[in-house]
């Protein structure tokens, strides 16, 4: 089965950068981009137990006559076959199309639904967060400037989601042939605890084969230690799926990380199922 990445294209210079990021990702891991060029300002995504309405900003509707050609041009510049374009089949209301959700990845700029000004200001839009919460696919959160990456970094904190993130990192490393680095911030537990988790999950062999280095920070704060994450790497991490209230009080690691780290992020939500 082919691996497919959903990309919402916007026919502006910013949109070009974002599509370049997506296409680079697809090229590297041998996936196919599937592009939706919005015709309406909003669309719906029906997930397993949630429906998310995404209200785009007006720039997504710019210059529709050239959008398709531009998108195809960017994709083909990476020597990928011409991408599939989504034409919505179902409409909840006449101006409210439903976009399918059976993809393997989805690319979002830091925020899909708000003004592009906010991009890069350390803010994951509420919609993107909802998508991460409900989607079966990991979400690729990219910056508004195209920057290729040459390695993969996994932030591994030992939770169930972090394990799926680690699995995903290993899978990406296998697909792309790029080196994989793992970073762990020690909290209450020692390094042995994490090794034990990996042993339980039968990931030892894969760790041995794909992981270039496993950096364990035993002091300081994660936010400060993140300086060691290579600047040209794709950072894979799990969103921890806390309840909304808990998140409001404590803030999630995902939010903290993404405010510090401007690398491209691949975020694994609680509903993600790693293909075996």
């Amino acid at each position: 089965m082919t691996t497919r990445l959903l990309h919402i294209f916007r026919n502006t210079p910013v949109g070009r950068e974002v599509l370049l990021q997506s296409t680079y990702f697809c090229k590297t891991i041998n996936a196919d981009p599937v592009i939706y060029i919005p015709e309406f300002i909003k669309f719906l995504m029906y997930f397993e137990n949630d429906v998310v309405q995404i209200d785009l900003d007006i720039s997504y509707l710019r210059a529709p006559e050239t959008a398709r050609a531009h998108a195809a041009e960017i994709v083909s510049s990476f020597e990928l076959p011409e991408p599939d374009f989504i034409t919505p089949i179902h409409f909840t209301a006449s101006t409210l199309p439903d976009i399918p959700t059976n993809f393997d990845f989805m690319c979002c700029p830091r925020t899909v639904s708000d003004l592009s000004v906010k991009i890069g200001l350390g803010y994951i839009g509420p919609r993107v967060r909802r998508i991460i919460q409900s989607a079966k696919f990991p979400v690729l959160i990219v910056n508004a400037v195209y920057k290729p990456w040459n390695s993969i970094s996994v932030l591994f904190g030992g939770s169930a989601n972090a394990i799926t993130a680690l699995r995903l990192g290993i899978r990406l490393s296998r697909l792309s042939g790029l080196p994989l680095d793992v970073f762990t911030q020690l909290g209450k537990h020692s390094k042995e605890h994490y090794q034990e988790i990996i042993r339980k999950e039968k990931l030892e062999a894969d760790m041995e084969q794909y992981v270039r280095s496993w950096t364990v920070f035993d002091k300081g704060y994660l936010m400060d230690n993140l300086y060691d994450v290579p600047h040209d790497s794709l950072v894979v991490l799990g969103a921890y799926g806390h309840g909304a209230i808990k998140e409001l009080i404590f803030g999630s690691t995902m939010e903290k990380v993404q405010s510090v780290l401007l690398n491209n992020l691949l975020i694994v939500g609680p509903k993600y199922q790693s293909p075996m």
Partner: protein
Amino acid sequence: MRKKFGFNIWRYPSRWIFFRFDDRLLLISIGALVGSCSGLAAMALNRGLIGMFEFLHHYRQFWWAFVIPGIGAALSSLFLEKIIKEGAGHGVPEVVYSVSRYGGLMRMRSSFSRLISSCLTIGSGGSAGPEAPVVMSGAAIGSNIAQFFSLNDRQRVALVGCGAAGALSAIFNAPITGLVFAIEVIIGEWSALNIVPIAVASVFGAQVSRLLAGNQIAFTHLQFHVRPIDTLACLGLAVFTAAVSILLTRTLRVSGGMSHQIKIPVWLRAMTGGCIVGVIGFFLPDVLGEGYHSVQLMVEGAFSKGLMIVSLLVFAKIVATSFTLGWGGSGGIFAPCLVIGSFTGLMYHRFIEVVLPGVSWVNEGGFALLGMAGLISGILQAPLTGIFLIIEITGGYEVILPLILVSAISTTLCHAFEPASFYFKDLVEKGHYLRPRTDEKVLADLSVGELVEKDCMIVSKDMKLGDFVKIMQKSHRNFFPVEDEHSGEFLGLIHLDDVREYIFDPLLYETVFLEQIMNPDIETVDLDDDLAEVLDRMDANHLFSMPVIANKRFVGMISKATLLDKYRSELIVQTDH
């Protein structure tokens, strides 16, 4: 992990030991909660409308009062478009759509958006009803409560029905109507599994309404003494109501289509429509708002206007309703139906009094009542909802015989001219009207991805026939997809029939490449295609199987044989309750 689970267990009631035994108990308890909540929402709209009415009452006498409905409609459409970012419309089709396709998943914002927007439209005098918005809110409340508790689709659909039932039974103080409407219109499946929680929700919705507004019957009336001759006369009334129903449906559609051709901002469009309604209302104030006041007068038999005026009112109300709803106002069709229906009943009564003087008919209120039933049944094509609604909101059980007759005939006649009811017209046209246990539903639930058979052997276009013959010996299938070795692109298909004449000639083994044999013009299926459409294409091209392609790569074959297999097991599973 364990701690987190413990913390959140209250959000997963289906895991409680108490409910694990049977989810019916779970549905009943949550249904009661949903019914109460949607009942509250309904009462909130009711209060809001009364408040708006009282507030605007003083301005009605001014000459510029005709702009009030315009402003209301403009505000309501601005609110929906810009703040809530939802489309206009009354919402019931949206509920049915989500029930049909997505197991009743609805957005949070739907649970209040229509309440506010329809309050603005109707309160300012637009000709529309509060019922459909309330139903949508109730349904969205049900859906969101189900989402919060992580319930599955079947349970969620039941709760959507609960929400709709609770809301409707609260706003009319009519629990049976709520129940029947939810089953007949929203869910479309009569099974005990749905009926029980919805009935409970209805009870709770009505109870909330009685607590807050008192137990009153919406339209009190005199005693009717229905004689056989009246029942006979009803046959004529049914024809009248059917005609008016069809007229209303068509006018609504034409006005909607017309408004979309005018290229002005939505709020301006809504405002124009509202102002037109205002102008009509200036001369015939009975058409404004939900119009229950005039219904009350008619049912009581205290509506004094003559035949001509009443006939005019029928058409004026139709026009006003279509300008309100078709041009971007927000609200439902229920209340206008009742108003138009009672006008029609009255009109008919006045008419037969003129044609057949001397005969003493039942009180004109009785005919108004029957007219309402006829119109509701005709527009919704839901006879049970019409019958129970009228009985419950008037308490007039004496008219039950003609009532059933009018409902049945009106529904049948309307169905002959308008095969799909007003609510479902768009859904049917787009193929979204999927009732449980139907062919469409089964096909919509199955996806191409579930049916793909992946045991085909893929060959490359540069392969020689000789090598291909060896591969053929091992394959179980008659089809061999050909792809480009480098790009992995799907190029065409080889069927055994295509090569039959060559494979026995070893001379060709080394000289013929598969590219030369394959059939490149093949109908292909996309992973996201609808199965119904795929089947149509198979039938049109007399195919038994088609290749499935995703991003130009071969995924597998889809065949009618597997489809039948899966279709059958799906049908068995879906019809097993």
